[in-house]
């Protein structure tokens, strides 16, 4: 009985994600799974990490590239968890991590979390990323997001902002005017 207990304690405590096991050679799958397991032990969502590995596989990335990408995402998820707290949902953490990886400073994440209170930061962060990727100036876009967050706007209101709105509200800001497609 004691031997069985010893054997049990030496065995891996978590099962490998079947998607990783199915799409990577065994040695690579073990390496990637260790990153996933480690994140899980820290209370971070593991699905985004599995999906990042699968993305690397379909894009023919090297194992080192995949490991690096997973570690960067794990780090961003850790920052998101620290900033948004233990109650943050997996979707919130994933969105916040995407925002951090897109260059949103951590202090802005903190500011948005404080402004939103108990409301999710998913919609405003999604809107911010959408605006900046469509050519809106980051500062102008953030001002618009923060203004709406201060008055506890609904998720739908964030989704309705366009780069033209950002430009109209902040015409003097560099890059805050309407993008080429709206001209």
């Amino acid at each position: 009985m004691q031997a069985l207990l010893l054997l049990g304690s030496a065995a891996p405590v978590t099962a490998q994600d079947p998607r990783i096991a199915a799409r990577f050679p065994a040695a690579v799958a073990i390496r990637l799974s260790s990153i996933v397991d480690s994140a899980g032990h820290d209370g971070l969502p593991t699905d985004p990490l599995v999906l990042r590995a699968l993305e690397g596989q379909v894009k023919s990335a090297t194992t080192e590239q995949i490991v690096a990408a997973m570690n960067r995402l794990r780090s961003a998820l850790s920052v998101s968890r620290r900033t948004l707290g233990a109650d943050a949902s997996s979707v919130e953490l994933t969105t916040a991590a995407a925002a951090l990886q897109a260059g949103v400073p951590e202090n802005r994440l903190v500011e948005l979390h404080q402004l939103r209170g108990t409301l999710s930061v998913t919609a405003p962060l999604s809107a911010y990323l959408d605006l900046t990727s469509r050519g809106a100036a980051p500062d102008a876009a953030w001002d618009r997001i923060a203004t709406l967050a201060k008055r506890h706007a609904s998720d739908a209101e964030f989704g309705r902002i366009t780069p033209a709105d950002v430009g109209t509200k902040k015409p003097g800001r560099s890059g805050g005017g309407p993008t080429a497609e709206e001209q």
Partner: protein
Amino acid sequence: MKAAGLLAMAMIAAGTSAAAQVRFETGGGASHLDQMASSPLTSVAGGVAGYIRNTRFQLDGNSDDHVGVGVSGSVSGLLHAQFNPGAWHVEVGPSARGGRDIGAAWARSMSGDIAAERSLGPVTVRGGWQFGVATTGGGHSSFYRPDFSADIRLGNFTFSPTWQSVVIHDSILAVRFVSDTMNSERDTSYRARTRDVRDVGFGLKWATGALSMSGHVTRRFGAGIVAQTWWEGSAALRLTPFASLVTKSGRIASEPVLGLRGGKYTTVGLRVDMLPHVAPHPAAERANRAVVERIGHEGVRLRFTLPASVRHATLASDLTDWKPIALSRTDDGRWEVVLSAKSGIHRVNISADDGPWLAPPGLPAADDGFGANVGLLVVED
């Protein structure tokens, strides 16, 4: 197909209605042409293909040096207008070909082409009709060439049954010498014959990431034709986004219209695909914006506008566990897919005609961490 995919994706990335793709390929190996001795082979090939609004142009050429035996080569070009009536893709226009067999003069042909194609999810069907005239060393010909083929995509595999018929009416220059005891003179005349060549084949392509492989087997038969089977296999390994290591081997059939001989060959070479940078046009970008439509709380319909030249498109995303799935062409010529999606930010890439994974047109793009871009799809509740 690879070049077409790159070209299409260049247009997608640029968001314009004009682009060009330049391809250069060189290789070495061995060849054994019919009725010729085996020899080392060096080959160079190149091509340019592009689109200006709804007109597609393509020019290709190659020269093969069968060392110690002779040089053969060919050039071809086309200029096709493109239309998209409903979910169909139709091309109409002229094309021309020239070819030179070892020790022979250049043969040439001109034709008018019409082709139609439709994508039905993972299946693409196409048919065409070509009518033309040719001049070879042996005389003149007229020909018509109906063809039908399909691509059936299952995961990383594409199965392609093909059927093609070429009916050639030859006017053959006949020369004979008539002599009697006093005079000798040449009698020159034309005589006619008709050849009916039918090719039935099956192709298979497989691609994953940087590696792609393809092969086909075709059986030729018909009136006045010696039945024969030929095959061809190739593999390409993408070394960089623009350079690929390519190896090919096979037995190619004779070309009946231009009278080019067939043979066996094996080559290893390098292919370079060059993409130009084309600045996006605001109007094009506006027209190309992706449509994201929520279906209930669990689904989302994505619609993309891709260049008219795109034959088939696939999407991979965290919403599909990064398994490629085929997009369907809609009646208005767009490409769409319906997926299960929870709210939040999702990562999406699409590939056109087996080209590289790029951010979909009309979606915000970000660095994917693997040296390329990924589209960011915002799904709201």
